[in-house]
């Protein structure tokens, strides 16, 4: 699924390659478990206040961080081995038609408030997840066709979920379904994750304390997690985040920007990690919402395929990678990163900057140059604004490079930085914007989890969210293909369908993809058992097995 990530914000597109963490986790722990020290507080920053503490509505990076650390799942994807592993479900079985799944639940598991976990909680969770009024972004992948999900509780530890149509990759989807308590008096705070929210000072920090009822133990029988607490400081400024890391005031930087990586690598080489190309993308899109408060002639531009493709063609992605990311990025060809080896459509290639080509494409729609100013067929000078979130220098630089690229074909681009809440309000509620630059954080490799972006009815269908019926033929075709790929278990067929989706997105450019960044992170040498990976959350995916040793005497992260 795709979520908004704040680091700027961003829409997060999640495509985790599902893998299972169990083997890797035990492997990672094995060497250190005997010496693992319990206690201590792990500190790191989130870039904004979480939009929601409801695990069903976590669609931004900060909310997802809190969700990851405080909730439990039936099945979990091991971020290192990319294999599924059992969690609350001791085992599961998917029917041959992929229309139902039966879970045998782990016994003796308690929520953080002490209430026992049972099949009733799974049924309650599914009912709430699929509630159309909730608009949970995690529900869309399950909606391969109309109809309700039926639950059959065989006993307190066995439940079967029956879907109205086959659901592709069914078991993997449960990596995104946080279990809720049906019976707890405090069902909104009771969780099955390694930590619980203990304190929250809005705009400042969130303190998570160890869940004393957490079900996992290490190989030596020691209760997990090792850490007593996790402190999430709200820190938008990446430079300050880096400074605090250098001073030893935080232990992790989950995603490091390229220039920070280079600076840190120069004097703290053993603290930085480059896990290679990530699944994240940076992209722009034009507002195509019919009721948006923008002039009609601009709406016509934004709805024009030629206009969008020309903008894409005019942008120099190679320069973006070289100048903005110091080479720690590659030009993006589409909605998937080439790092997603199976699902990426190998026939697609990133657009190469071609100003004359862009002008030729624009001419087909009646645009023409008039003394270095591009005008539409009615004589309107082509000028539009692009919003992005403030305090994200990388995005601002991308925008300024685009500004220069577009100026070469006579387009005036006004770059506007907004604080994150204002930006979200504009792109999600008032629709008072023309174009937006944000990032997508892929947290799932399987395309089914991107239903919340590509279905025309989806809330994260950002260029025109929640369409009642598809606004265009190509959107209707994407709907059809996405539903088709989600309804079959034949991966070859699914790949064919999703390849076509990628082609349509490339041809129509509702999102103009810019670059795929590398997965860069920083981990203090006082943190043990950390295994940085490409998939999110890169550094703390195995949070329950991380432990700390005392910092070095000068309080900094030594080498």
């Amino acid at each position, binding site marked *: 699924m795709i979520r908004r990530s704040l680091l700027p914000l961003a829409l997060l597109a999640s495509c985790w390659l599902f893998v299972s963490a169990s083997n890797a986790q035990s492997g990672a722990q094995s060497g250190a478990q005997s010496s693992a020290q319990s206690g201590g507080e792990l500190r790191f920053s989130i870039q904004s206040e979480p939009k929601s503490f409801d695990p069903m509505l976590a669609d931004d990076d900060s909310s997802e961080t809190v969700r990851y650390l405080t909730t439990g799942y039936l099945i979990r994807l091991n971020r290192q081995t990319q294999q599924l592993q059992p969690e609350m479900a001791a085992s599961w079985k998917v029917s041959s038609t992929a229309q139902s799944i039966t879970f045998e639940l782990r016994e003796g598991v308690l929520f953080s408030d002490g209430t026992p976990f049972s099949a009733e909680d799974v049924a309650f969770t599914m009912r709430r997840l699929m509630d159309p009024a909730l608009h949970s972004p995690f529900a869309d992948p399950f909606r391969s066709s109309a109809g309700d999900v039926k639950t059959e509780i065989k006993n307190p530890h066995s439940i079967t979920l029956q879907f109205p149509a086959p659901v592709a990759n069914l078991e993997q989807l449960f990596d995104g379904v946080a279990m809720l308590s049906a019976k707890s008096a405090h069902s909104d705070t009771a969780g099955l994750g390694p930590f619980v929210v203990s304190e929250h000072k809005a705009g400042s920090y969130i303190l998570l304390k160890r869940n004393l009822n957490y079900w996992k133990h290490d190989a030596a029988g020691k209760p997990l997690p090792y850490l007593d607490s996790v402190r999430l400081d709200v820190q938008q*400024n990446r*430079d300050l985040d880096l*400074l605090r890391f250098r001073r030893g005031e935080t232990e992790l930087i989950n995603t490091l920007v390229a*220039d920070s990586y280079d*600076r840190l690598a120069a004097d703290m080489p053993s603290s930085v990690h480059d896990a290679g190309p990530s699944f994240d993308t940076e992209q722009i899109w034009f507002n195509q919402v019919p009721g948006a408060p923008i002039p009609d002639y601009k709406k016509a531009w934004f709805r024009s395929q030629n206009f969008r493709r020309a903008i894409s063609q005019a942008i120099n992605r190679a*320069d973006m990678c070289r*100048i903005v990311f110091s080479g720690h990025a590659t030009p993006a060809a589409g909605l998937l990163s080439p790092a997603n080896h199976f699902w990426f459509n190998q026939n697609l290639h990133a657009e190469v900057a071609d100003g004359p080509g862009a002008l030729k494409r624009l001419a087909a729609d009646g645009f023409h140059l008039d003394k270095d100013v591009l005008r539409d067929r009615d004589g309107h000078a082509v*000028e*539009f*604004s692009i*919003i992005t979130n*403030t*305090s994200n*220098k990388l995005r*601002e*630089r991308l*925008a*300024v*490079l685009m*500004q*220069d690229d577009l100026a070469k074909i006579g387009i*005036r681009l*006004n*770059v*506007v*930085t*907004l*604080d994150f809440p*204002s930006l979200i309000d504009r792109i999600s509620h008032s629709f*008072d*914007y*023309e174009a937006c630059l944000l990032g997508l954080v892929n947290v799932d490799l399987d395309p089914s989890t991107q239903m919340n972006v590509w279905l025309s009815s989806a809330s994260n269908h950002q260029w025109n969210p929640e369409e009642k019926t598809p606004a265009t033929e190509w959107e209707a075709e994407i709907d059809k293909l996405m539903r088709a790929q989600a309804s079959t278990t034949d991966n070859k067929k699914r790949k064919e369908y999703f390849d076509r989706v990628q082609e349509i997105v490339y041809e129509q450019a509702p999102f103009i993809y810019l670059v795929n960044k590398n997965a860069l992170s920083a981990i203090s040498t006082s943190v043990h058992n950390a295994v940085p990976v490409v998939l999110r959350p890169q550094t703390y995916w195995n949070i329950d097995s991380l432990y700390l040793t005392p910092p070095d005497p000068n309080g900094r992260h030594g080498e």
Partner: protein
Amino acid sequence: MNRIRLVAVVFLALTFSAVLLADFVAPAPYAKQFREAPNAAPSAKHLLGTDDLGRDAFSRLLYGSRVSLLLAPAAALLSTLIAACIGGLAGYLGGWFERAALAATDLSLSLPWLFLLLTVRALLPLNIAPIASVTITFALLGVLGWSSSGRVICSGARAIRQSDFVLQAQALGCPPHRLFFKQVLPNLQPVLSAQFWTSIPIFIIAEANLGVLGLGVSEPLPSWGNLLRGLENWPEVKASPWKLMPIVLLVAVVSCFQLVFQKRENLAS
């Protein structure tokens, strides 16, 4: 002291001349990106090197100074005029009007400026040219920045109202509006002048603060505010000390304004 003031005046004159003639002095347009040379060190081609997008830092400093040094006095003039109207009338008229004006001044002083500016900026139309954006930013600073000056001017006007020559003029039957424009305002001139000169560095720094937050002047137009954003990255600045030039110039200009203003304040007192 006179010599120091002279140096300050000469420095300001040279700086203003350079920025006014930026079109002729600057070696490159402020928005031109030399993409093959981002973050370049100073050279004959780029006197102060280039920024992270390859733009000539010296040219951007000149144009950025022009924006800040021209618009900050304009904003200072606007705020001083508003302060003169509200504070001057309040001090001159006294009574309920003075009480109401001072209450408005106190309310204005108690407002969280920064958040107010952030909110107002967020409400502005998105599609405005950088030059309009910078003008609006300084206009906002001017409109919102009158209150502390207003209090000082009110106090000055009150003192004048109670002075013998005003009483004498009133006794001779001088009409109130004539008294205000011919007697009170001219005598407030030193106070107004002092308020004007002190406001300029305040507005320059306010714009710089907004720029550091990314809410000042829009790209690609430079201003001291967005030039100072480059200093957030201290390790890089340490390795490239020439990047300190914007702050060196800001401190120098503000100090010179202060020296000039001190002299004027002494004259006023």
